[in-house]
């Protein structure tokens, strides 16, 4: 009977356990986790914070389903992996033997390096515990400060505003998420935040968090040339995440920013696998090893790793990453390579060289492509066109085109017939794309299948 040990109870870990159980009905599967709250939707935490969903709805699987998988689920942190002995050491002093091991430890939120950052009232949105921590401290009418960029920072801004807090959003650069959005899209998001009463500050750095009796009472910030104090009760940060590679590094496995893994999701030890946010995998399009922090790819990696652990060969192919999210109320789909062209080389000062949750490094690759964009009634479409296919797209607002765009990017549909029209000045992209999509629907549907 094969013994499987999975470290981590997130999307990748649970998907791996499900796959293993399907392929090996009698194997013994342990899930070891430091999170006592079971398997919940991590992206759903933002909606718990905003009040759109109660905590009780965050659990995708009924308990009986998880029980049916016959897993040995232990809330017990792992302190060390000993590859030579095929053992993991647990915090309680015991050791557990394995035949196949999966490291699916995810990533952890980084916190700003500022005095006072450990005060009660400095929060992040990383886990069930963090969300509850915020909700216990969020008071209607009080002031909150949010620092950081990307999706999570905005979720904090919107969630705290929905809870009735007066929110100041500090951006270190001159616009929101400059690594992925273009100036018009950033402006669209910022305008909508302002309409909702959020006060957006540009070129502003958090210098210090001030406290009284161990609790946050304000911040000192530098905004342009002047520094000043702002009273607040909550400081929320989302400045990036860091893959949890410590166990792997101590065990002598190959690590860089994440744990290096092959397409089989195998590390440099043939019995140890890595999946999810912690895994760093080669992107076949760019030829670079890149990180993703996306729910669905994490699940897919878990399935592939689980299959290989159970002895059924499977390969993980990194597809054009895409995420659908809401930015200041605008549903936004980001697909493929979309780094904003006019600011080539410009750094996102809110996320300097790090990855966020809901983020993919592939998005920030500069496509060798030309850009076409159009804006109509609160909806915006930006396309990257390489030779005769789409390399990436950002679709904000109306999502009618997002499904066909995603498919066309994935299968690299030949767009020679409309390329010139799309690149004409002031081109009405939607009017050009709609009939093309209609005509080509069957052909790319077949390719996808």
């Amino acid at each position: 009977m094969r013994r499987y040990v999975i470290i981590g109870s997130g999307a990748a870990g649970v998907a791996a356990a499900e796959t293993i159980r399907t392929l090996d009905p009698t194997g013994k599967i342990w899930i070891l986790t430091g999170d006592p709250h079971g398997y919940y939707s991590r992206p759903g935490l933002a909606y718990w914070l905003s009040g759109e969903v109660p905590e009780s709805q965050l659990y995708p699987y009924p308990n009986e389903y998880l029980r049916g998988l016959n897993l040995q689920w232990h809330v017990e942190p792992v302190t060390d992996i000993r590859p030579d002995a095929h053992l993991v050491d647990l915090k309680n002093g015991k050791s557990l033997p394995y035949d196949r091991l999966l490291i699916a430890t995810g990533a952890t939120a980084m916190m700003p390096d500022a005095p006072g950052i450990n005060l009660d009232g400095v929060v992040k949105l990383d886990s069930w515990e963090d969300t509850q921590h915020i909700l216990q401290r969020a008071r209607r009418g009080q002031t909150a400060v949010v620092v950081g960029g990307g999706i999570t920072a905005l979720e904090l801004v919107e969630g705290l505003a929905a809870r009735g807090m007066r929110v100041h959003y500090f951006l270190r650069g001159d616009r929101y998420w400059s690594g992925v959005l273009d100036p018009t899209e950033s402006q669209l998001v910022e305008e909508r935040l302002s309409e909702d009463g959020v006060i957006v500050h540009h070129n502003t750095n958090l210098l210090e968090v001030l406290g009284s009796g161990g609790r946050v009472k304000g911040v000192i910030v530098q905004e342009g040339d002047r520094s000043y104090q702002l009273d607040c009760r909550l400081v929320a940060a989302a400045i990036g995440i860091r893959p949890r590679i410590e166990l792997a590094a101590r065990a002598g496995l190959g690590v860089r920013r994440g744990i290096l893994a092959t397409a089989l999701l195998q590390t440099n030890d043939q019995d140890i696998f890595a999946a999810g946010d912690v895994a760093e995998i080669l992107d076949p399009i760019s030829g670079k090893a890149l990180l993703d922090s996306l729910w669905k790819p994490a699940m897919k990696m878990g399935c592939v790793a689980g299959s290989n652990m159970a002895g059924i060969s499977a390969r993980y192919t990194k597809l054009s990453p895409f995420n659908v999210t809401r930015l200041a109320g605008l549903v936004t789909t980001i697909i493929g390579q979309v780094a904003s062209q006019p600011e080539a080389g410009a750094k996102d000062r809110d996320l300097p060289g790090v990855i966020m949750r809901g983020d993919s490094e592939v998005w920030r690759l500069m496509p060798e492509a030309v850009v076409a964009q159009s804006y109509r009634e609160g909806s915006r479409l930006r396309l990257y066109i390489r030779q005769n296919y789409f390399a990436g797209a950002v679709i904000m607002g109306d999502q009618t085109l997002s499904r066909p765009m995603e498919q066309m990017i994935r299968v690299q549909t030949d767009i020679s017939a409309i390329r010139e029209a799309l690149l004409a000045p002031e081109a009405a992209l939607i009017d050009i794309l709609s009939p093309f999509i209609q005509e080509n629907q069957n052909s790319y549907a077949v390719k996808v299948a």
Partner: protein
Amino acid sequence: MFALLFNDTSQKREVLAAGRVVPETDRCVQCGICNYNCPINIDVRLHALRGEPVHDRHCLTCGECVLRCPRGVLHFEANG
């Protein structure tokens, strides 16, 4: 103007009555907002996870799940 509005509404009803909710599984992050907003407690999320249309005969096609999903996972498709 009113004729136009009326026309739009009746068309929409027709689509709902003849349609079903179809998920796009790759977009779903299993947040549970669909389940929470379903007036008759259909496990829409499970359908989304499995990539199956909501074929529950109790489904009212009221559109709450489609409307509330923050990631555009769900859409109506005509039966056929």
